[in-house]
């Protein structure tokens, strides 16, 4: 499948504050992609540059083989044919739901417009709301209308800017699943921006983790969690702690929990000082043989309990275990490590 969007080494920002720098990202048609990063990392700026609301000072953005942004070219947003869902939905308050959805397809005949509006409302499950006004809808309904409006012109690319951030938690998850279903069913190429990794993992087949204006890692969610490419991704995605270690060989690390080994080898020579990433699900409690560690905190989550532990060497660990294993703070427990993907960073 051809690459529909190519972002080549773009740079955005003003004289003294560069928001996005040397940012490169390509993806193919019909894929759902996500930009994930902490607030202020420049992800929204990238999205707005693609939409045509932010100029770029170097590099180029190519949509379907056409340069839409570069240092000298700036195709206005209305000529790009991209769809966008805004963070605050940006529904037109003076137009009814049907008029909102029909806004982008006014070149069609009235009859066809009605057909598309009907189809869209059915798609998002709001057939009964066509004649209402945006202020008469709940937040979740407004969100669906915003998606319907953006999809109605059948854009080659759909941009979504934190579309779920104004909703409460319950609704957010359900809506994210619904929207994913719609996007996959229609095979809509999507670029989705969020700071919430759960949302990113629900919608994104590929996720780019961003920090300080550039991409840290561009990968599938599974790999981001289990094989983070650098310390930032390791820290930002999922939970876990880094503990001190020294390479014993190319395959194993000596730590305060003993000698650890995974399924991979490391390029650095033995005796190199490293940090070892241990996820809460890598750390097992109450094992037959292991280092004795102190429970310093516990957080009951229903089916599971998250324990915080201190090793004899003073490192901190997290461990997520089924909640029938009930240990009190201040007790000691034997700890083992089962890490298939043992991630190590050079200090």
């Amino acid at each position, binding site marked *: 499948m051809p690459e529909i969007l190519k972002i080549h080494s773009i740079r955005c920002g003003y004289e003294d504050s560069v928001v996005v720098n040397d940012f490169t990202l390509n993806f193919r048609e019909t894929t759902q992609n996500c930009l994930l990063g902490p607030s202020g990392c420049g992800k929204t700026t990238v999205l707005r540059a693609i939409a045509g*609301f932010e100029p770029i000072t170097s590099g180029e953005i190519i949509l379907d083989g056409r340069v839409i942004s570069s240092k000298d070219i700036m195709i206005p947003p209305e000529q790009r044919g991209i769809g966008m869902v805004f963070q605050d939905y940006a529904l037109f308050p003076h137009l009814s739901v049907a008029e909102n959805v029909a806004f982008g397809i006014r070149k069609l005949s009235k009859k066809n417009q009605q057909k598309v509006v009907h189809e869209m409302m059915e798609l998002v499950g709001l057939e009964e709301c066509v004649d209402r006004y945006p202020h008469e809808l709940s937040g979740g309904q407004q969100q669906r209308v915003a998606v319907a409006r953006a999809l109605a*012109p059948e854009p080659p690319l759909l941009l979504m800017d934190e579309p779920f951030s104004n909703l409460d938690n319950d609704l957010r998850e359900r809506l994210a699943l619904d929207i994913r279903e719609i996007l996959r069913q229609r095979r809509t190429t999507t670029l989705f921006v969020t700071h919430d990794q759960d949302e990113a993992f629900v919608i994104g087949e590929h996720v780019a983790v961003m920090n300080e204006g550039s991409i840290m890692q561009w990968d599938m969610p599974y790999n981001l969690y289990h094989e983070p490419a650098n310390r930032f991704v390791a820290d930002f995605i999922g939970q876990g702690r880094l503990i001190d270690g020294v390479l014993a060989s190319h395959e194993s690390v000596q730590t305060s929990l003993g000698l650890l080994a995974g399924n991979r080898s490391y390029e650095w020579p033995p005796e190199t000082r490293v940090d070892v990433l241990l996820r809460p699900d890598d750390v097992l409690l109450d094992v037959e043989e292991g280092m004795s560690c102190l429970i310093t905190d516990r957080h009951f989550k229903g089916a599971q309990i998250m324990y915080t532990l201190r090793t004899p060497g003073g490192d901190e660990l997290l461990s997520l275990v089924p909640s029938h294993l009930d240990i009190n703070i201040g007790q000691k427990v034997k700890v083992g490590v089962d890490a298939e993907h043992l991630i190590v960073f050079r200090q």
Partner: protein
Amino acid sequence: MLAMTVVMPLLVVFSGWMQTENVIWEHLAQTVLSDLLKNTAWLLLGVGIGVTILGVGLAWLTAKCEFPGRRYFDWALMLPLAVPAYVMAFVALGLMDFTGPVQTALRQLLGQNNFWFPEVRSTGGVVTVMTLVLYPYVYMLARSSFITQGNSTVEAARILGLNAWAAFFRISIPTARPAIVAGLSLALMETLADFGTVAIFNYDTFTTAIYKAWFGLFNLQAASQLASFLLILVVIALTAERNLRGKAKYHEATRSSRVHRYQLTGWHRWAAVLTASTILLIAFVVPVIQLGLWAWGVLSEDMDVRYVSMLTNTLMLGGMAAVITVIGAMILAFTRRSHDDLVVRSSVNIATLGYALPGSVLAVGIMLTFASMDNVLLTMARLIGWQSPGQILTGSVFALVIAYVVRFLAVAYGPIDSGLGRIRASIAEAARGLGSSPAATLWRIYLPLLRPGLFTAALLVLVDVMKEMPATMLLRPFGWDTLAVRIYEMTSEGEWERAALPAITLILVGLIPVIVLVRRSSKH
């Protein structure tokens, strides 16, 4: 009770129809009525179009675009609000008349009569002058609407295929429509009520006709019949405005996000600077400079005891009216808060209707009311054998102050009511719970918390009273001059220079509330 004070004069105005003096009425109907209606219609149409274009255009420029000096124009464009329309009118005449500096300079440059110059005393002239002083109403309201509506709906429209202009007309304007209509209706009510400007331009409207019927023909009936016509026009405008706003409630559903301004480049930015500064120059800077020059010329003669007494008269009237109005408005606001039922709510609505009443209509109504009350009082006085001077209430300062209170109650009610709305009921309840009596709660809780609102209310009333012309002209006790009256007298004789000193005083005083407004809006 307060609502009654407003309603009485209105009823009396219409009662003028009961004792029809057919001769005069027929005379009026045949000669002037159609002209009056035609003139008023043209004036409303012209000013309406003018203030909408100027106000909305400038608001969009300062709220949505970035160009050199934008931050200064942002507030400076509100300054013309401080210039009373009649002051602008006589400055325009003084500048543009046949003997004025503009035409004189042109004559010297181009030779005698070698050029065409528009007639200043014309419909176009009145419309231009009124537009220049009234556009800030639309400007202020449209501007804050453009700022709060944020940018995302416009961006959504752009990405759905509209270019920048189409997005402006199809998204920004409809969203700001309630604000624009509100500003427009304020401007049109001022236009209907205006007396000074049309009098100076000899442009006959209902207000000047009422004045002539009163002082020229000494016929209160004719005056009240004319007043009732004007009143009907106001009621129509008011109903239209309320209806439009009622339907447009949904517009407020938009949430605001950060303001994103178009960066104007090339000639666009200089065109923006040129437009904004031209308006500011014509509507504020030039008139103030011209007034300053004139006032400077006559300063030594006019800065005398008379000026001081006019100033004290004006300030005294304004101060009295301000205190009474603020107290009245507070009573209204507190009543509304404690008993929010239909009767109270509609009384409050009626009591605050006074702002829409043209001063001349109000004056006629109050005059008639007081005249009949005088008759009763005089009969009673004679019964108890007391020889009275002939009139008690009519032509007293009291009548004038009542007129001001009725007219400006709404002006004071606004800031007090919104100030009161910000004080949560639980605060007062906490005070009561801590053992403070209702009176002590008022004194120790409400008054200190309301102080900014009370101050703004008093200030607005004071300045409005000082600028008020028609009611003052009609109701003032004989020989009791105020600054506005002085301006009318001098301008009706074409002595622009002698009107300049009181005019510039009024502008300086009028600047105070504008500055308060500007500072408040910059806080948002």
